[in-house]
């Protein structure tokens, strides 16, 4: 098998699996699990094969694998089924494959009793195929196809528990907000193709990086338009609001889509087209500000969340901010490094959170902080999640430390003016925001760990052991979480060749910030945890022995009823509440961005809809009714003429023929 064939099969296998699964899933329930797992496994194996054959060892000297075929002539700008596998694509594909496999295997246990499992698994497979397509594609239009398929899959999967109102509105919100970014994205693609005359990514990059290549005509416009789509897909401020709400979907979906892969697509896209963004300093500045606001804001919001998955969701937003920050300072190696590391440990965190939610019977941190013994019930999840949280907080020697240090190092590099084409202000913005976020990240990671695993109160009831499939997946993901960062020495060979080794300054600063944040949070927790016993709080799932997904769905559905809000809980024992002070109220709601959107978009749209409804009812309907009534009235008039009196008929007939005859005579006479 040639490398090209293998690379083609990587997106194709899950796609076929999804088709067969959608078509035959209901009729052959026995085949659903193999159909879900095996194509993904095979695709992952092929992705690894491609990566091994393609990259590594020779640095940027390795020519990217490039193949293309043209199905049909599409006019002035050709659209090709093109493939471009370089080091970035190979590694990201491996990440996607591994996480997708883990999620599929995990789902067999997590959704074991779910009646809609077959369609769920098929959609996950379809999603995997689409992501692989985005990763490997060399053509912007083909990439867009994968991009949009991911969007629609995300819509269906977030709405998997469509019985709950939260899931319904969350899926709609996710779809609409990402589409809001996708429209400028599409226009940006067209403008880019109009400027360069091609949809080929490698062609555009070659043209922009080679010395003879002409610069773009509208670099800032293109970059900003593309940035809108990226902000929507990668959940960057101000289009990030859909991601926390998307946690209403099943946990494996959150792990796959909203942590490891789909949201990374935006970052990956910028990494592929970085030269386009580098040609516009304004776009880089916007990117840096966006990243900074996203990082800090989401970290503050994460401190105030009560739902464990929403904490992780905001942390995802923040980590994606790191990646865009790295891109803003022009270091795509660091960005993709962080992307892969984050994908691994965030998938682990989410999958572990799914286990925790089932064991605790709730998704509320406040309720968990009033339970004891959770660690003993789920030791596998405890240890893996602990390590993953350490990685999230960037504590050495775990993956997150190295990748985050690469980002901060690149930012420092740019801030001190060592990177060409990057304004120093951009570097400073990213560096300072990144350091502040490191502090906050460690804070909320510590908060999550302390509240979830160190609760005091009633012991957690025993719901039996978790399925082997789920625990095994946790340990599989544990390996890259713990060890991937150590590959910092080898990774530059896969990427652009720039060093990803942590520098001393940023390492000390970043780790110091992280330790400070964790210590402050620990102190606050010591101060507040005593109050937990005094304020009883919490609700647990009604069916603790059912499958994990059932517990989760019930927890999501009851959170607002039990705690007054989807996001927060009135818990005085929450250390985050103590530390944030008056800011807590705003942070819990994501700094009222939803309210702003509501005022800016939802209400005008509703008003416009009301107007349209009124116009439709009162104006257009009137026309319709008029059109219906006019023939009716005319018919009534004609009915009245049907008297049955033959003489009347005859009179009318004769009068008419007389008029006709006179007219004919006059015409014949030429009068």
């Amino acid at each position, binding site marked *: 098998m040639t490398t090209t064939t293998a690379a083609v099969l990587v997106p194709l296998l899950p796609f076929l699996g999804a088709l067969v699964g959608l078509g035959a899933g209901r009729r052959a329930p026995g085949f659903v699990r193999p159909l879900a797992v095996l194509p993904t496994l095979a695709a992952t194996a092929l992705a690894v094969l491609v990566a091994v054959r393609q990259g590594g060892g020779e640095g940027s000297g390795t020519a990217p694998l490039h193949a293309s075929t043209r199905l049909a002539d599409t006019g002035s700008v050709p659209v090709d089924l093109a493939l471009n596998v370089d080091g970035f694509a190979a590694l990201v594909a491996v990440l996607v494959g591994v996480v997708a496999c883990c999620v599929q295997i995990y789902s067999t246990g997590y959704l074991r009793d779910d009646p809609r499992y077959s369609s769920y698994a098929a959609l996950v497979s379809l999603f995997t195929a689409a992501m692989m397509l985005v990763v490997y594609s060399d053509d912007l239009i083909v990439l867009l196809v994968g991009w949009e398929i991911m969007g629609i899959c995300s819509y269906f999967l977030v709405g998997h528990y469509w019985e709950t109102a939260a899931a319904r509105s969350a899926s709609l919100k996710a779809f609409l907000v990402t589409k809001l970014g996708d429209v400028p994205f599409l226009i940006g693609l067209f403008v880019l193709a109009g400027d360069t005359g091609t949809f080929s990514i490698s062609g555009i990059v070659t043209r922009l990086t080679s010395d003879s290549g002409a610069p773009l005509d509208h670099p800032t416009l293109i970059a900003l338009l593309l940035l809108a789509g990226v902000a929507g897909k990668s959940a960057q401020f101000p289009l990030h609001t859909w991601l926390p709400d998307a946690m209403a979907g099943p946990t494996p979906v959150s792990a796959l889509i909203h942590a490891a892969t789909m949201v990374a697509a935006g970052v990956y896209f910028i990494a592929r087209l970085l030269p386009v963004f580098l040609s516009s300093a304004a776009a880089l500045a916007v990117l840096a500000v966006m990243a900074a606001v996203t990082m800090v804001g989401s970290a503050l919001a994460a401190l105030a969340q009560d739902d464990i998955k929403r904490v992780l969701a905001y942390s995802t937003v923040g980590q994606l901010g790191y990646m865009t920050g790295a891109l803003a300072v022009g270091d795509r190696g660091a960005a993709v490094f962080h992307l892969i590391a984050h994908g691994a440990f965030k998938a682990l965190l989410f999958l572990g959170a799914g286990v925790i939610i089932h064991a605790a019977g709730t998704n509320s941190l406040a309720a968990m902080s009033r339970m004891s013994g959770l660690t003993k019930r789920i030791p596998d999840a405890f240890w893996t999640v602990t390590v993953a949280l350490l990685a999230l907080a960037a504590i050495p020697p775990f993956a997150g430390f190295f990748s985050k240090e690469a980002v901060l190092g690149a930012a420092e590099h740019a801030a001190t003016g060592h990177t060409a084409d990057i304004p120093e202000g951009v570097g400073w913005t990213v560096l300072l925001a990144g350091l502040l976020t490191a502090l906050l990240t460690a804070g909320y990671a510590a908060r999550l760990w302390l509240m979830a695993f160190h609760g005091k109160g009633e012991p957690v009831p025993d719901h039996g052991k978790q399925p082997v499939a789920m625990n095994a997946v946790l340990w599989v993901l544990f390996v890259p979480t713990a060890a991937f960062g150590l590959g910092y020495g080898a990774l530059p060979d896969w990427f652009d060749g720039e060093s990803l080794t942590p520098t001393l300054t940023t390492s000390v600063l970043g780790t110091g910030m992280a330790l400070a944040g964790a210590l402050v949070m620990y102190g606050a927790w010591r101060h507040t945890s005593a109050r937990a016993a005094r304020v009883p709080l919490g609700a647990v799932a009604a069916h603790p022995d059912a499958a994990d997904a059932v517990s989760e769905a019930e927890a999501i559905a009851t959170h607002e009823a039990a705690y007054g809000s989807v996001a927060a809980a009135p818990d005085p024992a929450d250390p985050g509440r103590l530390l944030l002070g008056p800011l807590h109220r705003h942070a819990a709601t994501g700094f009222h961005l939803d309210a702003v959107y509501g005022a800016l978009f939802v209400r005008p749209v509703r008003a416009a809809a009301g107007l349209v409804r009124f116009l439709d009812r009162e104006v257009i309907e009137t026309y319709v009714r008029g059109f219906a009534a006019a023939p009716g009235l005319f018919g009534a008039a004609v009915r009245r003429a049907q008297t049955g009196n*033959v*003489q009347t008929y005859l009179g009318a007939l004769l009068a008419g023929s007389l008029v006709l005859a006179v007219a004919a005579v006059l015409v014949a006479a030429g009068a």
Partner: protein
Amino acid sequence: MHLAYPAVLAVLLFCTGLYGVLARRNAILVLMSVELMLNAVNLNLVAFDVWLRDTLHAGQALTLFAIAIAAAEIGIGLAIVLLVHRNRGTADVDRLRDLADPPPAGTPAADDSVTAPTDNGADEATPVRRQTA
């Protein structure tokens, strides 16, 4: 003789018959008016035949045929009028309104009781006929 005289006379007779057909209520009077119209046409035929000196006498032959056909028509027409009168009890043209659009259901039929073509009405009319005959 000026041709306009018979032609104008025929026109006026025809229009008189026309008026009668449209204005008369009794079916037999309508038939009389039809006869007037036919005669007007006959007059035209004869006048033009005489004027043109047709060797085949087509106009006069056609007049004869028209007279015969008119006679047949009056016979059949009277038979129909009698039949209608026997069935409906009336020979008034404007009360024979079976062609009328039936009034919407629910509204009472005001003066259509006679004209409504029900078998009942026909059966009721027959005894009346018998008594008077």
